[in-house]
């Protein structure tokens, strides 16, 4: 059996607390990206309705005032914030800045801190 046919090692650990922070940033980057892809038609539809007419704008305005819609909006804001902040971190890593083990760990924690501030600010603004 040559190296190409060796079965890939599999390691499943679903408890995110057991991973080091950059791995958690990574999987959330993927989850938030997939979520935003799936939500794209909803966001486009809301933009379309809000621009359609005065009455439609009012309907969207009333609709986004509903508490459940606000909660959903906060979830979307989290996906946007995480994808944005983690994405900027990856762009910086691409320039070979912060590649060390300790600095990578610290920047991953910084991603979570910044996104938490952004999401809390958004929640405070809409509520």
């Amino acid at each position, binding site marked *: 059996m040559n190296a190409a046919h060796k079965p890939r090692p599999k390691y499943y650990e679903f408890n995110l607390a057991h991973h080091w922070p950059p791995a958690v940033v990574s999987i959330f980057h993927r989850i938030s990206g997939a979520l935003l892809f799936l939500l794209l038609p909803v966001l486009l539809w809301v933009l379309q309705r809000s621009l*359609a007419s005065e009455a439609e704008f009012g309907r969207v305005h009333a609709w986004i005032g509903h508490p459940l819609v606000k909660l959903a909006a906060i979830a979307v804001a989290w996906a946007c914030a995480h994808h944005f902040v983690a994405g900027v971190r990856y762009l910086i890593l691409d320039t070979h800045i912060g590649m060390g083990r300790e600095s990578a760990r610290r920047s991953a924690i910084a991603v979570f801190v910044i996104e938490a501030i952004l999401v809390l600010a958004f929640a405070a603004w809409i509520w």
Partner: protein
Amino acid sequence: MTIVARHYTKDPVGSHSGLGNWLMQRATAVVMALYTLGALACLAMQRPDSYAAWKALFAGGFARISTFIFFAALAWHAWIGMRDIFIDYVQVYGVRLMLQAAVTVVLAGYVVWAAAVLWGLQP
């Protein structure tokens, strides 16, 4: 004489030729990040609180074109991201190819939809 074509053809769904996609994912990310910062600054300054103000935000040619470029970059970026996800988790090539084709069609549709919304071709 039998020619077995699959020995000579390029694999249509593998993870090969990733560098171009990797680079475009970064380029489109930068475009979207710049648009997002600009759009947030615009919203913070204009504070649209009525239909007229909201519609006026998207009335200018620059706003329409930059928003359209944002959606085009988003579609390209999402296409690469979904492709990466399929390469990682969908090991059956036929299924992966169908999913990638479906995502391509859907995203192309979203870009046209965004153009229709921005240039007011809606009912």
